[in-house]
C-alpha cells in the first residue's frame, strides 16, 4: 500500500530581524503571532486544527520555560484540549516536529496538524548563548569551558575538507556573500540591512574577527528570535481545502520525500568513521539521497532549489558536494561557476539561509519547509527561483549529528 500523502497548506514566519526582548515580549507572544499569522495566511479556522507539534531546542535555558507543547493551547480558546507535544534535536528540532506531524498524518490519526518551530535567543549575552548552544554537542567532551564551541567544531569541518581535498577561504567568503545578498531580497531576513560585500566577507581584520579557527563572524549564522508555523494536511483535508480555496488539489504542494539520520555525537568520531568514505559526513549524504529516493527523484538535477543548513559557511560548503552538485571535495567549482545564486543552475538558500535569513534554532527546519512551500507555489517574492516545482531542505542538529531533509513539490 502506498504511503498516504502529506500536503503542506502554507504558513507564516515572524520577522527574524525582531528582538522580542527589546519589544519586551514573552515567548508566548512569539508563538501566538506565528500561529495566528499562519491561520490568517492559510485561511484556516482554529477549530479545524486537530493536533500541534512544537519544535524547540532550549527554551528551558533561554527563557526558563519548558512544556512548550502546552503553550500552543494558550494561542486560541479553540486549542484547549488538543493533543500537543514538543520535539528536540538541537538545530534540527523543527524538522523533527515536522517528521512527527507528518507521520501522524500518514498513520491516519489526524487530518490537520499545526507545526510550530520556535526559539527566543536574544534573552542572554552572546557568550552565554554560545554555551547553551554547546549542549547540542557532547557538552562535557566538546564544549565545557570552551567559548563559542560551535564555530570551532565547524571550523574543524573546514579543516577536514582542507586536509582531504584542499579548501580556500575565498570560496567560503563567496558563500557568505551570496547568502547576505539573497537576504536583502527577503523581507523577513534578519540581516537584510546589514553591510556585506565579498571584500568584507574576506576581510581579516577586527571588523570580521575570528571566532573559531578559520571561522570568522561573516562565516556564521545569527543569534535570532523567531517562530514559524506551517500546516500539514491529509489528502482528505487537502481536497476539502482546495475546493474552498477555489484551487486544484494538484496546486497544493506535498512532502514528496524525507530523510532522517543520526550520526555519533562527537565530531572526531564522525570524521573517524568517514575516513575511507568519499563524503566527509556520509550520514548527511544518506539523509539527502533517501529523501530523493522516496520522492522518486534521481539526483540533484531533479531539484529546482535547496534550503540548506548553513550554520557556518563550511556547512554549506559541505552540503554542496553532499547534495551531489559536484563530486566530493569539489564544492568550490559550484561556487566559482555561480551555480548557487538565485538564477544559477543549483540555487542554494534563496532566502539567505541561516547566515542571511537568521537561525532561531528550533524554528529553522520549519522555516526551510515554509520557504520551500513559497518557492514551489511562486510566492517567494524577490527571492523567487523562477519556475521552481521541487525544493529540498537540509536541516542539521549538532556537528552533523541529526540530519533531516524534506522534498516539497507540486
Amino acid at each position, binding site marked *: 500500500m502506498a504511503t498516504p500523502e502529506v500536503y503542506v497548506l502554507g504558513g507564516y514566519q515572524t520577522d527574524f530581524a525582531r528582538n522580542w526582548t527589546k*519589544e*519586551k515580549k514573552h515567548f508566548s507572544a*512569539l508563538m501566538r503571532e506565528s500561529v495566528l499569522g499562519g491561520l490568517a495566511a492559510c485561511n484556516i479556522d482554529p477549530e479545524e486544527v486537530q493536533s500541534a507539534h512544537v519544535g524547540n531546542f532550549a527554551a528551558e535555558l533561554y527563557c526558563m520555560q519548558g512544556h512548550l507543547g502546552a503553550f500552543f493551547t494558550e494561542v486560541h480558546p479553540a486549542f484547549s484540549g488538543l493533543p500537543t507535544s514538543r520535539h528536540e534535536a538541537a538545530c534540527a528540532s523543527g524538522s523533527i516536529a515536522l517528521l512527527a506531524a507528518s507521520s501522524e498524518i500518514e498513520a491516519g490519526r489526524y487530518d490537520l496538524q499545526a507545526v510550530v518551530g520556535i526559539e527566543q535567543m536574544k534573552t542572554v549575552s552572546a557568550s552565554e548563548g554560545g554555551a547553551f548552544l554547546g549542549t547540542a554537542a557532547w557538552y562535557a567532551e566538546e564544549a565545557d569551558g570552551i567559548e563559542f564551541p560551535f564555530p570551532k567544531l565547524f571550523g574543524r569541518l573546514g579543516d577536514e575538507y582542507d586536509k582531504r581535498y584542499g579548501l580556500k577561504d575565498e570560496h567560503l567568503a563567496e558563500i557568505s556573500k551570496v547568502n547576505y545578498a539573497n537576504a*536583502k531580497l527577503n523581507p*523577513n531576513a534578519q540581516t*537584510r*540591512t546589514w553591510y*556585506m560585500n565579498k571584500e*568584507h566577507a574576506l576581510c581579516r581584520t577586527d571588523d570580521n574577527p575570528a571566532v573559531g579557527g578559520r571561522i570568522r563572524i561573516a562565516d556564521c549564522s545569527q543569534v535570532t528570535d523567531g517562530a514559524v508555523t506551517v500546516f500539514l494536511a491529509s489528502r482528505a483535508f487537502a481536497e476539502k481545502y482546495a475546493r474552498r480555496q477555489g484551487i486544484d488539489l494538484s496546486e497544493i504542494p506535498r512532502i514528496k520525500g524525507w530523510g532522517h539520520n543520526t550520526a555519533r555525537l562527537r565530531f572526531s568520531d564522525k570524521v573517524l568513521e568517514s575516513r575511507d568514505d568519499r563524503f566527509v559526513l556520509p550520514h548527511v549524504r544518506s539523509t539527502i539521497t533517501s529523501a530523493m529516493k522516496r520522492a522518486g527523484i534521481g539526483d540533484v538535477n531533479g531539484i529546482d532549489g535547496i534550503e540548506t543548513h548553513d550554520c557556518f559557511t563550511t556547512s554549506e560548503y559541505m552540503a554542496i558536494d553532499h547534495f551531489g552538485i559536484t563530486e566530493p571535495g569539489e564544492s568550490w567549482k559550484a561556487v566559482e561557476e555561480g551555480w548557487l545564486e538565485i538564477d544559477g543552475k543549483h540555487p542554494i538558500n534563496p532566502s539567505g539561509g541561516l547566515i542571511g535569513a537568521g537561525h532561531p534554532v528550533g524554528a529553522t527546519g520549519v522555516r526551510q519547509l515554509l520557504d520551500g512551500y513559497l518557492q514551489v507555489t511562486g510566492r517567494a517574492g524577490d527571492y523567487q527561483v523562477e519556475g521552481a516545482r521541487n525544493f529540498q531542505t537540509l536541516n542539521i542538529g549538532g556537528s552533523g549529528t541529526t540530519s533531516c531533509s524534506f522534498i516539497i513539490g507540486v
Partner: protein
Amino acid sequence: MSSAKEARKLLASRAIERVVVLGANGTMGYGSAALFTQAVPHVTFLARTKDKADEGLAAAIAQVRSPTVASRAETGDYERDLEAAVGRADLVFEALTEDFAIKKDMFDRVEKARRDDSIVATVTSGLSIDALCEGRGDSFRRNFLGLHFFNPPNVITGTELIAGRDTDPAVVDFVEAFSRLRLGREIVRTADTPAFAGNRVGFKVLNEAAQLAERLGPVLVDRLVGPYTGRALTPLATIDLVGWDIHRAIVDNVFENTNDEAHATLELPASMARLMAKGVLGDKSGGGFFKRDGKARLALDLAKGDYVPVGDVKLPDLGYIDDVAALYAQGRYAEGIQVFLEAEGDEAEIARKVIAGYVSYAFHRAGEVTETITGIDLIMGAGFNWAPPSVLVDTMGPESAVRLIEGAGLPVPEAISKAAASGEPRRFFEHPVINVGKYFVAG
C-alpha cells in the same frame, strides 16, 4: 510594484558601475554613499574640500563598520574633481544641505558635466522635484528624480521615490528595481507634494507632540504617545534625534505650502523657536527635550528653558499604559488597544486625540501624497517604524476607529466609516509578509 522577474529584467537593462555622491560629508551623504558601496564598484565621495570628503568616507566606514567601503570609494572636491567624476557617473546622487539655491547652483554644474544617459537623484526630504529641475534641458528633466532615504539609510529601509512631471517612467522603474534588489529598499512611490508622504504624516504627529509638550511637559507627552501607541522611539526623543533644525525645516515647509484640515498642528511651537535661537538643536547640540548628564536623563522645562531630572517630574496615574503593555507582552494586541481606547482620564483622552489625528490625517492624505493608503502605511512602517495607520484601524476594528476619531472631534475618513458600515474591506493592511505585531511595543 513589478514582479521579481520583471524587476530582475529591468535591473539587467542597464549598469550602475559608478556613483557620485555630492555632499558626501553630510549625514545623508555618507550614509547613502556607504549604502551604494554594497552594490556598486566605484563610489565617489565629493564635498567642498577633499578633507571633508575624506571625513565623509571615515564616517561611512564607521557607520557600517566595514573598512571595505574604502576599497570601493574615491574622494575629491567640487573645485577640481566634480566635472570629471560626474562625467563618468551612471548615477549622480545629490545630498547637499536642504537649501533650494545651493542645490540649484550644484545642478547647473551637474547638468553641464553629466552624460546624457546618466541618472540624477536628489535625497531631498521635501523640496519640489519639479521646481529643482525647472528650466533645465530635456535630458536632465527626463533623468531626474527624488530618492528619499531616511536616516540612517543603512538601518532604515523605507525609501520614497518621487518622479517629476517630466521624469522618464522607464528611469523611475529602473531606479525602483535597482533600489529594491540591490540596495534592499522598501520603495514607496509618492507624489511631488511638500515633504512627500512619510514626513508629511510623521512630522504632523511629531509637531503635535511638541505643541503638547509646551502645556504638559516632555516627560508626560512621551509617556502618553509612547511605545504602546505603536512606535519604538517616543516622539520628542525622535525630534531630538532628527534635530530641531531639521524638524523646523520640514514643518515650516508643510505649514507654508499646504492648507489642510490639520493645518494648526503643523505650526512650530513658539518655545521651540525661542530655544533654537539660543542654540538648542536636540542631540547634536547636547540636548533638546531631553538630555543626558552622565547617567542621569534630564527633561526640558520649555517655559524656563532649564532641565530637571526625569525622575523628579510628577506624573498622573497612567496605570492603563501598564495594562496595555502587559497584554502586548503576551501578543494580545487587539485586547491591549481596547484597554487604551476605553481608558478613563484626561491623559488617555489626550493620547487618543494624537493617535486619532494620525489615523485621520493619514487616511485623508491617501490619493494626495500616495495613490492609496497602502503607500502611507508602508512608509510609516519602514521609514518611521511606527504602526501604520491601517494597522491601527485593523487592530482596533473600523467601528472603534470611527468612535476614536469622532471622540477626538476630528474628521472621520470616508474609507473607515464605509468599512465600519459595510464590513469591507475586512482589512486595510493586506501584506503577505510584514509582521504587524512588531509595531506594538510592550512599554
